[in-house]
Each structure stands twice: as C-alpha cells, then as structure tokens.
C-alpha cells in the first residue's frame, strides 16, 4: 500500500463513517417513543430492609438490635425510611419515589456478588451461554432504536447493555482529541480487528458529539434551584448529570452503576453514605431532566438483599430477597409494594434471608411494557426469556 491508495481508501472509510447510525441526524427523528428509562445497578447487595425498615413486623427489632436505631422516618406506621434517604422524602410524598419489598432475581444458593450481578444484568437464570444483557435485548424489540438510543455510562462495561443491538458507551470524564491524520491512521490499524475498530470509532464519534451537545446546554433557573438539594459531589453526580444530558436529547435508555452496598461491617455508617449518594443521584436526575422527568422511570436494582439478622460485625451478610427502589415522574410512588412475607424465622428463606415474593424481572417487565409499549410476548421471550409476567404490579401512573 502506498500513501496515495491509503488516502483514497480512508476517504472511502470516512464516507461510510458519516453514514453510521450514530451520527446520522435523520435517524434521531424515529427515536422509540418519548419515555425514558434509567436503570441504576447497586453493586454489592443493598440491604432492602434497612433502606426501608419493616417497623411493623414483630420480629424486626430483635433481628437487628444495632441497626434498628430509631432514626428512621416513619412513612405509614409500618415502613420506616432510612435516614440516608431523607432527602428523597419530598419526592416520596409527591409520589415520585417508591419501593417494592421482598423481590429478587431467580438467583438462589451461593449468594455470590458476581454470579448475582451476572444474572441481574443478563436477566436469565444461567451462567455461560448467551452473554447479552436484557436492556440490550429490549433494544432489539424497539423499532427505530439507534446506538444513541441507549447509553451505558461510567468506566465499566455494563453487561446489562451488551449484546447484538448497537448502544453507546461513555464516561463523563472521558475525552479524545485527534488530528485528522492520526484519526485516519488509527482507522487503518483497527480496520481488521472489529473489537478495536468499533470501540475506537465510537470513542471518536461520541467525544465529538458530547462536546457539541455540551456547548448548547444551558442551565435554566428551575434546574439550578433543584440542584441545591444535592448535598454531595463526586462520580455519582457526574454520572447522573451525563445521563440526564443524553436523555434530554435522543437517548431513551441509560444505565450506570453505584457501588458501596456490601455492608458486612458498620452498616450504620456505610449504608447511610451509600443511600445519601443514591438520593443525590436521583435528585440530580430530577433536576437535570427538567420536563423530561415526568416521562422518566428510574429503577434501582441490586443483585440480592442481605441476611434478615445482623451479623457479628454490626453489618449484614449476603442474602436473597431485597428491595427495588424506584423514582420518576412516570412512576406511581409514595408506596411500598410487594407481598410482605414477614420476618418470623419460619418465614425466612433458608432461615436467614428475606423470602422473595416476586421476581424483580416481572416488575421491570411491566414498567418496560408501559413505557415502550413492548408486547408481553416479547418481554416473556426476548427480554426475559422464560419469565412469567404475572399480574401488573401497577408501578406506572
């Protein structure tokens, strides 16, 4: 190959890049619907019955002598909100935040974070086999979905969005500046390696796109005043801001994860910190989404709940049934849903964990159905194969 033929060849590549689904403006006209779904993965296993304490359950206090400290906010006489979620109380009262208790994926047994997260993101009870994530499979059912339709945000891969449908991946702190010649040479050295070619071309395209969109973004007074409720700063706020910026545009689905939930020790402090971060993440989304918030569902999913009893180090160990917190103007909040199995020893799963009374995938499936009009048959065969959707839990307005 000589320089001339190289330049000719890359000129041709340049044309095909311009026709890529990511950058073609006309593609945006057909974005699937107007609703937005944000899925936040809480990695580590959030303790559902500490986030929302079943005060009315006669067994609760004795199981958790060090964690049930009376500093909760009483919601309805039975459920108490963890003080770390206090900043969400106004949203709870406005019906924009709620929870479902005693739910889980179908994962049982070894209580591994990593298998638990794999199953949560795959949406299938299996390890190995089809490596796709359920949010990605959802995209394959949405007419008009483009790479821009869904964003995996943060430095991690986010298996929930891996699969056959094109998605966008980016981290708020990422950046890429290249000369035109360097870009052409990189296209050449990645040309024969699809993994590198796709990741690099998307990096180049998204870096340019994000810069352009950020230039036109403006802070309106309502957003500024809502942001005053956000007490912390850090990665979680940056993730939420980035997600909101994309969702205000053509993006319909965004997913990112928050850590800090594996509270084996001194849970009183560690969970408070993590719940405050989660509260600020949700408040940031609400502030930055503006009017789009009314069309938004935010689902906070975790790989499992924790033991019903406190362990020997003022924390809790890996359990089974947990809670799904949710938020958004499209959701019916202000309530704790799910059939409550009770904490009596005989009612516990394997005499240690909260017994799951629902499959969290069914809760998610009904939200998807309402938000995107996805057919029940697609949800039960494509998004969550082998799931029985069951009855509508009524989480959407």
């Amino acid at each position, binding site marked *: 190959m000589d320089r001339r033929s190289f330049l000719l060849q890359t000129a041709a590549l340049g044309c095909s890049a311009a026709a890529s689904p990511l950058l073609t403006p006309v593609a945006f006209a057909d974005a699937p619907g107007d609703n937005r779904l944000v899925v936040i993965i809480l990695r580590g296993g959030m303790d559902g019955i500490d986030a929302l304490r079943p005060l009315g359950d006669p067994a609760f206090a004795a199981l958790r002598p060090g964690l049930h400290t009376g500093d909760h906010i009483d919601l309805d006489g039975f459920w108490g909100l963890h003080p770390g979620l206090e900043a969400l109380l106004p949203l709870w009262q406005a019906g924009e935040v709620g929870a479902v208790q005693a739910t889980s994926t179908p994962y049982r047994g070894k209580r591994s974070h990593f298998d638990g997260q794999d199953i949560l993101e795959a949406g299938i009870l299996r390890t190995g086999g089809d490596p796709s994530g359920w949010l990605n499979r959802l995209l394959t059912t949405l007419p008009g979905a483009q790479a821009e339709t869904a964003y995996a945000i943060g430095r991690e891969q986010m298996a929930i969005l891996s699969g056959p449908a094109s998605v966008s991946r980016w981290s708020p702190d990422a950046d*890429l500046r290249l000369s035109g010649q360097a870009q052409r040479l990189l296209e050449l*050295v990645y040309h024969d390696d699809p993994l590198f070619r796709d990741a690099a071309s998307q990096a180049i395209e998204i870096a340019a796109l994000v810069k352009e969109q950020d230039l036109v973004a403006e802070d309106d007074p309502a957003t500024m005043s809502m942001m005053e409720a956000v007490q912390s700063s850090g990665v979680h706020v940056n993730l939420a801001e980035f997600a909101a910026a994309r969702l205000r545009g053509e993006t319909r689905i965004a997913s990112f994860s928050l850590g800090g939930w594996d509270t084996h020790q001194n849970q009183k402090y560690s969970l408070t910190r993590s719940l405050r971060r989660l509260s600020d993440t949700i408040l940031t989304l609400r502030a930055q989404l503006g009017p789009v918030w009314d069309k938004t569902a935010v689902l906070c999913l975790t790989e499992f709940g924790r033991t019903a009893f406190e362990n*020997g*180090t003022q924390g809790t*160990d890996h359990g089974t049934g947990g809670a799904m917190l949710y938020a958004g103007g499209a959701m019916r909040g202000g309530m704790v849903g799910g059939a409550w199995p009770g904490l009596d020893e005989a009612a516990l799963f394997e005499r240690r964990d909260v017994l799951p009374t629902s499959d969290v995938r069914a809760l998610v499936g009904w939200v998807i159905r309402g938000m995107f009009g996805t057919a029940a048959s697609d949800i039960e065969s494509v998004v969550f194969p082998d799931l029985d959707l069951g009855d509508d839990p009524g989480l959407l307005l």
Partner: protein
Amino acid sequence: MTFDPTLAAVRFGTGLSPRFTRPVGVESILTDLSGPDEIREAIAIAGFNDAKPSHATVTWMDRAAKAALETPDEAQAMQAREVVRDQVRVVRRQHHLATIGRALDAPLGLRERLVAFWADHFTVVRRPFQTAHLVTSFVEDAIRPHVTGSFAAMLRGVVTHPMMLIYLQQTRSTGPDSPVGQQRNLGLNENLARELLELHLLGVDGQYSQADVRELAELLTGLSYTDRRGFFYDPNRAEPGGETVVGLPFGADATLDNVLEAMDILAILPGTAEHLAWKMAVHFVSDDPDDDLVAAMAEGFGADGDLMGMTAAMLRHPAAWTPQRDKVRTPQQFITAGLRALGVTGNAVMAIDQKLYQQMLTRPLSLMGQPWETPIGPDGWPEDAESWIIPQGMAGRISWAMQLPRRIVTDLPDPREFVDHALGSLAGEDVRFAAAAAENRAEGVGVVLASAAFQRR
C-alpha cells in the same frame, strides 16, 4: 504451535524492549524463573511491618484527629494527620512506580506477571487513606515469595496477613459460642470464608454450599489483627468444636495450627487445582482456554500445589503458543509495555515527580478503567477483552499513546524503528505503514502503541 521468542515476551513477559534480548526457549525461561528473585533485591518495596508510615501510625493519627474535634487541639491534630496522609500518598506512589520499575528492568518479566496474576487472584482493596500504601506491601509479603513455590504457603500467608483480614473483615468475626461471642453477644462475618471458597479455592461453580461457607467462617474465627499487636490468633473469639467444610472434618481444637492445616488441605483439593489452572490459563493465554492445556496445568499443580509446576506445564504446552492473540493488555500492562518499548528504565520511571505521575499514570489508568490497586471488589479485574475495549477505555488508551511518550522520553524514536521495538514480528503491514505515514514522531509512536496489534497479547 511452538515457542516463539516475541510471543514469549508479549504473552508471558511485560513486553518487548530494545534493552533486552528475547528468550531463547522455554527451558531457559524456566531456569531463570527458578533462580533467585534478583529484581526484588534491586528495587525495594517495603513489607507491611517495615512500611512507613506504619498502619499503627496512620490509624493512631486518625483517632487522635477525631478525638481532638472541637477541642483547642483540633487544628494541630488535623495538621499532624494531614502530614501522615501526605506520607501515605508519597509511599503509595513510590510503591506503584517500583512495581512498574521492576517490570521495566526485568529481562523478560514473567515473574512480575505471575506476581500481578496472583495478587489479583487474592485481591485486597485499600481503605482510602489508612492502607492506601499497603496493598503493594501485602503483595510483597504474601504473594511474591510464593509465585514459584507452594500454593498452600501462599494461602497461609494470605489468610494471616493483616491486609486480607482487614479487607474481608475477618478481624472482628467472632464465634457465637466462643467466650467473647457469649459475653458480648457477637457472631460471624462470612465475608472471608465465602470469598475463599468462591474466588480463591474452588471457584463459584465448585462443589460447596452456603453451609460450607458458614462452617468455614466458624473455622476461621480467631484470626485477628490489631494495629498494636499485629497478626495474632485469638482463642477467645474462636468457635469451639470441629467444623466440616466440603465434607472434610477439621480439628476439634480451636487453634491457629488447625486453621493453617485446614488451609493446607483446601489448597490442594482437586477442585482447587482445576479452578486455579483454568484461571491462570484464562489470564495468560485465552478467555476460552484449551481443555488439554488446563488439564496439563492442573497436573503440573499436582497433589502438593506446586505453582512452579503449574507455570512450567503452561509454558511447555503447545496451546500456550497459539499465534492467535485473544487477550488484551490491561491498562496497567499496556502502560508498562509502552514504557518498555520506549526503552524507559526503572530508575527513570521511579524518578518522575508527582505531577507527571498524575498525568502519566493515575489519571490515565482511571480513564482506562483500572485505577491502581482499586478494583471494585474481591474478584479483582476483569479478564475478557470486551470488558476493556469499550469506547471510554479506548479514548484513554489512544490519548495516552498519542500524548504521554513525548513527556517521558526526550528523543522520541523514529516511528519506523519503533515498530520493531514495540512489536517485532507481530507488526503487520498496516501498522508499519501507519508508523511511516504519520505527520510527526509523536503521532507515529502513538499510532503504534494504540494499535490493536500492540494492545493484544
């Protein structure tokens, strides 16, 4: 599929370097690996007991600062704590740079790769300030001496090391029927027991149950650490009576010897051998490794858990030399290999200042998804190429390749020669062309380092 000197340096070493000749064969690699650990002597990293500031100093300063809150001594205590925290940051940087320095100065770097692999296998994550400089010390104490020795010895070292006991919260796990447990109504913390079975020994698909996790947690009670006493065995916290883990009965007396003997037995279970062989083959060779390679490695591990035997079996197996390069370099491996290809010496990298350290390592590693010694959990870093080669990670890799070499090396090499330094026989026509077609040296070097050919191993 036979031995290839370039592949040896790329797949099993820390990368090609113009400073070193390539190895001549598998047996000479193994002979070198069996010899003394010279680079450890040449470039020092402090162990847990020798590191300054010590864990005791850091925790003491923390406590003093907290105790002085809202007293007249507050400002002084806070300042004293900040001085110690600054020292921690400096030592953390020195340990990181020494780790890279070793990988740059080792002729092949196989031992450095083994140390990194086993350190990841037994992942310990720091506490933000208190132990930020001590993860490297843990690796130096508990991992490095054993990478060519016995797995049981490594396991003993790990379960008695303060850093593992702190990280997986073993120090306060208490037998419910032990004297302390009875007196103060305390109980178990399952964390270390679970990760031992799931990650370190049998693997999550291994033959164990929640009941085994519980029994092992009871067996491990008594392993203790305080910053004053260091590691010790506390019989007052140990659960009395024998425990049965994966069908094996372990000593009825709650003693340290019984815990360590249990480790010796769990370390050499066939299920452990299979899991470790598979994991090591995945790390070095392929995300979907050849069954026969894994079986040979498990056999090399043998009935006594011989890590040298397992490494030798890997290198002697033809499947280890497949020309197909499925694996990609992790960000840390990528930066190290880039510096090696540029001919940077250990001394040069250990002399960089705080600012360049931030620009060259701290920030780029975070952007590429691998902040130094800070994986999310005890399962360590992902292995599969798909986890690393995502747009945001590629943005970090490309930016490093294009911008950093010129800040470290005063005279950048001619990109056409650099292709040979960095890739040797692995360079395809596309990379050679791109290196020659670049508008300037920085972009020429950058495009070689950013190429898929260089990122894969």
